[in-house]
């Protein structure tokens, strides 16, 4: 049996909060209505990761709720990882705020795991402070143990130690893991079943017979069982990936915007995934490599807790490009040459056999979905990413405000709270069938031919009689409103006062008219 690699994991759990410059305040970071990061102050009030947003606000009403910005988190994290890489080779980013590396060499150099950990902790805090120029709060936890999984848990447990370092002695990982709650297993479905079977700790799960676990849970169960036993999961099928699986794209002219790199990355990521899938493999670690027009080469290893699918790969390239390109942009200030990216290469660094769970078996992708995917790729290839979009409802008052168009391939993430919150002043359904991007100006006139106005108290100066617009003069046969919308009244520069009016015309048309600053526009038509 192979012994797991001695691994150091640095786990900065409130990284998003630090990046936002709010390390000292009660802050809760949410994504999809779930809490994903909690500041120290909010934690003290009882807010925990995984809570619903409403519950978190109930526990800590003074907390500010901010939406996650993974791009910013990753951008700020890149220099931190780079600083550590000067001391230790082969640093693997896991996600913004978390990275890992093998302890063996560096540990010997710095005089033991504990000394190494303390050193790394200080380097990380230092790099973050110079990079961000903000309060870094309590900093990261550093854990050293046999294997990535145990080291990750050790890093999180390190927060209770005074020096934020926890070293699990060699060969004692299983012992360290045993009392941990089953939820830490890293697979929600297995944790759930195990809990109902009365297995409340990792130790209880680890004590099961391996053949029973595989019979009940299949391949993911085996992986979880090995983790719980403090063994390397990847020891199952470690493979040297065939070199021809690497894919690359050349930029001519060099790409100097994140969008261009990210767009190319999407195609490249699916190419990589196809190549792997054809051999029945999946990647668990990946090297993203770029070359600039001045011949500089940079690369970063990314490790995934699960497996890296095309979307996850594309996302990481985007983060990485943001980090590198902002780095380049900062060099301009130092009179250093700027350089666009000329080459992007994705190289799987570690692969394992694709488990029996093929995507289509679980409804992940269908034939129709693949056809659509290809059609979209063709159009985006022709006209750019914005040429194929889907709509996301984001909440708001007017019909245009409630919709955001997202390029196909980008995350359709929604601030669920904003989308479902009540919006006083929202015009009720049915909604207009036509919502032009640039509403045309119209005149809304009263019986004397004077423009209809809306008072500060939301009252019409006179009933509307005619609308003079692009289709000529139309007599108004019915109207309702106005629905006043006073937005951001607390904000001197950002505030807007608007009102909407529904009108029905003799021609049969019905419109939604919007007045702002005394001018009417035809916002939408029913």
């Amino acid at each position: 049996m192979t012994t797991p690699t001695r691994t150091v994991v640095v786990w900065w759990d409130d990284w998003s909060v630090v990046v936002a410059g709010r390390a000292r305040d009660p802050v809760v970071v949410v994504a999809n209505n779930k809490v994903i990061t909690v500041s120290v102050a909010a934690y003290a009030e009882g807010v925990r990761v995984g809570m619903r947003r409403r519950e978190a606000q109930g526990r800590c009403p003074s907390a500010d709720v901010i939406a996650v910005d993974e791009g910013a988190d990753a951008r700020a994290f890149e220099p931190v990882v780079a600083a550590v890489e000067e001391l230790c080779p082969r640093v693997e980013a896991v996600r913004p705020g978390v990275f890992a590396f093998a302890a063996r060499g560096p540990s010997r150099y710095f005089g033991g795991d504990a000394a190494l950990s303390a050193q790394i902790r200080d380097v990380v805090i230092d790099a973050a402070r110079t990079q961000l120029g903000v309060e870094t709060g309590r900093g990261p936890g550093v854990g050293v143990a046999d294997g990535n999984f145990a080291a990750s848990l050790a890093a999180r447990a390190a927060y209770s130690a005074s020096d934020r370092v926890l070293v699990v002695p060699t060969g004692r990982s299983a012992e360290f893991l045993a009392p941990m709650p089953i939820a830490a297993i890293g697979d929600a479905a297995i944790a759930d079943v195990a809990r109902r079977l009365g297995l409340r700790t990792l130790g209880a799960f680890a004590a099961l017979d391996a053949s029973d676990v595989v019979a009940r849970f299949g391949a993911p169960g085996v992986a979880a069982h090995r983790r719980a036993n403090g063994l390397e999961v990847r020891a199952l099928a470690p493979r040297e990936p065939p070199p021809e699986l690497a894919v690359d794209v050349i930029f001519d002219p060099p790409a100097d915007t994140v969008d261009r790199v990210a767009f190319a990355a999407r195609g490249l990521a699916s190419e990589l995934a196809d190549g792997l899938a054809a051999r029945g493999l999946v990647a668990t670690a990946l090297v993203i490599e770029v070359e600039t027009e001045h011949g500089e080469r940079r690369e970063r290893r990314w490790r995934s807790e699960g497996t890296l699918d095309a979307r996850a790969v594309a996302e990481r390239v985007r983060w990485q490009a943001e980090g590198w390109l902002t780095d380049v942009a900062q060099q301009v200030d130092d009179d250093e040459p700027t350089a666009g990216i000329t080459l992007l290469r994705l190289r799987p660094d570690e692969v394992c056999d694709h488990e029996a769970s093929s995507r289509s078996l679980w409804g992940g992708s269908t034939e129709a979905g693949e056809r659509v995917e290809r059609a979209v790729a063709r159009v985006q290839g022709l006209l750019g990413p914005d040429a194929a979009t889907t709509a996301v409802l984001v909440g708001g008052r007017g019909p245009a405000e409630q919709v955001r168009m997202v390029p196909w391939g980008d995350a359709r993430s929604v601030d669920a709270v904003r989308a479902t919150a009540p919006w006083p002043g929202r015009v009720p359904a049915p909604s207009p069938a036509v919502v032009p991007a640039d509403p045309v100006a119209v005149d809304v006139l009263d019986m004397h031919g004077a423009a209809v106005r809306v008072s500060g108290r939301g009252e019409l100066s006179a009933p509307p009689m005619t609308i003079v617009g692009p289709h000529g003069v139309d007599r108004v046969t019915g109207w309702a409103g106005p629905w006043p919308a006073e937005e951001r009244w607390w904000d001197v520069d950002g505030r807007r006062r608007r009102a909407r009016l529904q009108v029905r015309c003799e021609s049969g048309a019905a419109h939604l008219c919007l007045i702002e600053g005394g001018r009417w526009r035809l916002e939408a038509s029913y």
Partner: protein
Amino acid sequence: MRAARPSLESAAMRNAITLAAGVVPNDGWVAAVGVPSLGVLAAAEAGLALDRLVFFAAPAAVWGTVAIAAVDAFDVVVLSVPARPRAAEVRRLAGRARERSNTVIAIGPGAAAWGGEVRLVTSAVSWDGLGAGHGVLESCRVSIEVDGRGSVRPRQVDLVL
């Protein structure tokens, strides 16, 4: 799908949305080609799944290419036809749509040039629910002139949407 007068264009769009929502199969995909102004909220209210409704930009120069890509892959295509489409392109598109037996709902200035199976012309619209300063738009009645090939018999239908 056409409007008899410019002022009825939004009603024609509403018909197109309703029709698309009616014919799209469960888990089916809908493309909106060259119709950025299609009301997303109205589409959602009509029952279209927004994550399977893809909007394509279709500048005149590549309209045919984009339209073909959409017709090849989507179950329902709401297609804005430019004022003077190239006849060969339209024939090719119509042929492709028949071959793949999906639904193309042609709208826009050139919709008349589209030789579809059925022609729907929105000739009159009236909205209910709105008074003089009170109420809110509730439902609309549309008159549609139906005409088409083969067994389609010309007639007028009134619908409440």
